[in-house]
C-alpha cells in the first residue's frame, strides 16, 4: 500500500539553534529509508487541540535510515508563523506527526559532471545531502550559499565538508561577498564548467538561478516553495505553470510533480508580486466569454 510514502508519529530527539533557524532531528521510522535529496516532509502542528489544520512542509536536510533510535530525519526550520513557532518550541521526546517522504527528488546526472548547488537562506538545507550524493557519483560539487545576513545563512561549515568549495554571499555583506547568489553564480559555472545547477530558495532567486544557468549553458533544477494545503497531491492548491515536454503549459502540482522542476520549464513570466497568473496559453485557461 505504502507507495513510497508513510505517515508516522515520530519523536523529536534533538532541537538546536543554527543561526536564525532551528535544526530538528525526528525519529520517523520508515521515512528515512524511502527518501532522496530534494524531497520533503509534511509535519502536523499544534497537537491534539490545534486550530492549525494544515501540515507544514520542510525540505529533508538529512536522513539516517538506521541508528540508535531507528530512522531519523533532520529538518531546518525558520520560525515565521504559528506552525513553525510551535514546532521550534517542542522539546525532546515530544511527538511529531510526519508524512513523507513527499515530492520528486533532485534528478541526478547519469555522468560525473561538475555541479553547482545554490541555496538561499534555509533553502540550502537539502543541498549538503545532495552534494554528498553527487560526489559519491564522482561529480565535482561547489556550493553557493546566500542570505540576507550572516545569521540567515545555513550550513556554511557543513558545506565545507560536503562540497569541494563553498561561496557565500549576503545582501548586507555581513559574511562573504556582498550581493546576491546570482552575482557570483556565473563565474562559478564558468570556472567549474558545471552542466547542472541545483537551486533551492525563494522564487525570485530560483528565477535568476535559472537565467544565469541558461546564460552559461547549464541546466537548472530548482526546488520551488508553493503554499501547500495537503502536500500529497489531492487538493490542487500548490500548482504553478510549467511547460511540459509537449511544449504546452499546464498548472501542475508542485507537491507531486515537483517541488523540483527544470528551471527553464517554469513559466516565470506568470509570477509577479506574490501572485501566479494562469498564462493565457495554458491548457484550460479561461477564455473570454467563459470556458
Amino acid at each position: 500500500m505504502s507507495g513510497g510514502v508513510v505517515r508516522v508519529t515520530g519523536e523529536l530527539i534533538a532541537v538546536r539553534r543554527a543561526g536564525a533557524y532551528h535544526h530538528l532531528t525526528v525519529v520517523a521510522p520508515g521515512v528515512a529509508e524511502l527518501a532522496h535529496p530534494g524531497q520533503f516532509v509534511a509535519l502536523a502542528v499544534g497537537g491534539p487541540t490545534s486550530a492549525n489544520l494544515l501540515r507544514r512542509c520542510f525540505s529533508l536536510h538529512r536522513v539516517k535510515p538506521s541508528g540508535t533510535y531507528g530512522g531519523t530525519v533532520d529538518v531546518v526550520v525558520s520560525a515565521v508563523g504559528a506552525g513553525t513557532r510551535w514546532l521550534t518550541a517542542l522539546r525532546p521526546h515530544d511527538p511529531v506527526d510526519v508524512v513523507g517522504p513527499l515530492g520528486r527528488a533532485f534528478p541526478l546526472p547519469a555522468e560525473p559532471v561538475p555541479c553547482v548547488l545554490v541555496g538561499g537562506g534555509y533553502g540550502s538545507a537539502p543541498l549538503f545531502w545532495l552534494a554528498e550524493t553527487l560526489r559519491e557519483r564522482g561529480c565535482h560539487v561547489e556550493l553557493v550559499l546566500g542570505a540576507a545576513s550572516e545569521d540567515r545563512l545555513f550550513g556554511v561549515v557543513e558545506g565545507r565538508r560536503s562540497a569541494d568549495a563553498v561561496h557565500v554571499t549576503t545582501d548586507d555583506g555581513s559574511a562573504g561577498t556582498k550581493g546576491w547568489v546570482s552575482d557570483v553564480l556565473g563565474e562559478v559555472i564558468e570556472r567549474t564548467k558545471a552542466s547542472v545547477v541545483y537551486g533551492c530558495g525563494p522564487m525570485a532567486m530560483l528565477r535568476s538561478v535559472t537565467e544565469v544557468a541558461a546564460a552559461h549553458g547549464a541546466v537548472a533544477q530548482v526546488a520551488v516553495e508553493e503554499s501547500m494545503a495537503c502536500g500529497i497531491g489531492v487538493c490542487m492548491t500548490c500548482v504553478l505553470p510549467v511547460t511540459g515536454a509537449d511544449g504546452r503549459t499546464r498548472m501542475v502540482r508542485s507537491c507531486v510533480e515537483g517541488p523540483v522542476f527544470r528551471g527553464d520549464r517554469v513559466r516565470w513570466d506568470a509570477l509577479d508580486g506574490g501572485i501566479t497568473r494562469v498564462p493565457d496559453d495554458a491548457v484550460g485557461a479561461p477564455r473570454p466569454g467563459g470556458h
Partner: protein
Amino acid sequence: MADMTTALGATRLPNPVMTASGCAANGKELHRFFPVSDLGAFTTKTVMRDPRSGRPTPRMAETDSGMLNSIGLQGPGIETFCVDDLPWLATQGARVLVSVAGGTAEEFGEVVDRLVTSPGWPAVVGVEANISCPNVANRGLVFACDPVSSERVVRIVRGRVPAGTPVFAKLTPDVTDVVAIASAALGAGATGLTMINTLLGVVVDTDRLRPRLAGVTGGLSGPAILPVAVRAVWQVTAAMRAGLLPRAPVIGVGGVRTGADALQLVAAGASAVQVGTATFNDPSAPRRVLAELEAEIDRHGFDRFADVVGIAHERTAAP
C-alpha cells in the same frame, strides 16, 4: 460489530463513509495510504466538459480550524476522466460517486452523456451534481443559490443518468432557506442531497493589505464549519420528518475529522458522510473516520448503522 450498510436510493453501500469531492483527487494519491475500496464510496473531483486550468495562485489560506480555497474546478475534463480516472477506480473495486458540473445547465447534461458511455460506468454508484458552482448564464450566481436554476440542472442530470443510478444534488449553505433549494432539487427528481459545500469567505493578508487569495473569495471548509453542516442536515431532515419535503437520503459533509463528528451528521439525519479537508491533515482520515464511526455505533450498542440515522430528532424534546 454493527451492520454498517447504508442505502442511497436503490444503491446499497457497504458503509456510509466517502471522500468529499475535490479533497481526494481521483483516488491514486490516497490509495498510497489505504485501499480506496475500503470506503463506502469514493467521490471524485468535480469534472466539467473541457479541461480547466483553475484560478491563479495563491489558491489557499489557512484559517482557524479551517481553510479557504479557490481552486476554480481545475481538471482535465470529462474525456480524460472517463479514459484515465474512472477505469482506474473501477479496477481497484471502488464504488464511485462522480461529481459533475457545468457553467450552464446544458453543460451538466453533456458531461453526464459522456460519463454514462464510459467503460468504467459500472463502477459508478451515483452522480453528484455540484450545483454549488457559478452559473455563467446568470451573472455567475451559484446555481444552488436559486431554486429555479437548481431545478433546471437537476432535471437535466436526472434525465440523462440511467434510472437505477442515484443522483445527488450538492447544496451550498450560503442561502437564506436551504429547505427551499432542497425542495427544488428533490422536486426535479434528485434521489437525495449532499450538504454542504464550502461557505464563501475572504481572508485579507495583513502584510500586503490585500486579499490573500488571488481570486479574492474562496470556500471555507474544515472543522470550523461542522456546526453549519449539522444545522443544514438537521433543517432538511426536520422538514422531511414534518412532511414538508419528500423523504430522501442526505449525504452529510462539512468539517468531519473524527468518527464522533461523522456521528453528529448521522444523528442529525445523514445516511452517509463525506470527509474533505481533514484529509489534508491526515491522509488516511476517510478510512480512520470509518473505523471510528463503527466504534461509536458499537459503543452505543446499535446493531445497525441505519438505526442511528436521524436519531437526534427522536431524542429531542418538543420545544
